[in-house]
């Protein structure tokens, strides 16, 4: 993040569950960004499916001052997505892509191998949902 001069970074699952974040100051911002990023990943995956091609590897948007980069990769335990927001003054798409590739390689290497993913239980889901709603509404 420091080397790419990125302002915000989010590592999430395609379902929108946040695994790591940097640069966000409020939990609500993280959750909103994760939900929106997951929606974009799902939309582009469906668009690729309709075009009968493999899912898009990365998506980039640039405004006058900031750009965002959203890419997903497949690790041992499933797909992960990375959202990065950067200032165009101090960083660039090429720089973000470069350090994203390093991050993706390191996450793939760190991912536990040879284990079966645990079934998500209804009890866990309800607890996580309640925690998220409590955070969202400040309770």
């Amino acid at each position, binding site marked *: 993040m420091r080397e790419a001069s990125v302002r915000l970074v989010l590592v999430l699952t395609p379902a929108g569950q946040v695994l790591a974040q940097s640069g966000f100051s409020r939990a609500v911002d993280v959750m909103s960004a994760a939900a929106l990023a997951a929606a974009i990943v799902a939309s582009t995956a469906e668009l690729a499916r309709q075009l009968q091609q493999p899912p898009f590897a990365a998506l980039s948007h640039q405004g006058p001052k900031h750009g965002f980069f959203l890419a997903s990769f497949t690790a041992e335990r499933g797909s992960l997505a990375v959202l990065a927001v950067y200032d*165009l003054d*101090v*960083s*660039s*798409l*090429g*720089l973000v*892509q*470069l350090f994203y590739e390093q991050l993706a390689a390191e996450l793939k290497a760190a991912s536990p191998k040879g284990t079966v993913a645990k079934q998500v239980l209804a009890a866990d889901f309800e607890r996580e949902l309640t925690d998220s709603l409590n955070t969202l509404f400040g309770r």
Partner: protein
Amino acid sequence: MSTALDLITRVRGVRGAMLVSADDGIVVAEQLMEGIKGSAVAALAASLAGRLRRAMEAAGTGASVFWHLQGEQGALLVVPGGKASEGAGGGAGILVVAVAEPDVNIGLVRLELLRAAEAFI
């Protein structure tokens, strides 16, 4: 584009040449020998170009026309072409980048880089 790169890579000691988008740090065209990570060189060279441009503006020296970074095992030579050599907000410019052996004829490479850059003005 490939003709411009051909002229640069034809110089003895040049291991590769690239046209890089100065704003994005993305490779536009490349002719590189094996072992050179084109996308990494492009991203980092564009980042360096942006910082150098600001440093030179602050120093009041005007826009850079050529830079040469000499390493122990090679050299990186860059000419900002098009609007990349202009000040902040110069917009979509091109960097002409050469990766060379340490004992390359710098003057000759510089000449070819400048010629290639002129094509993008």
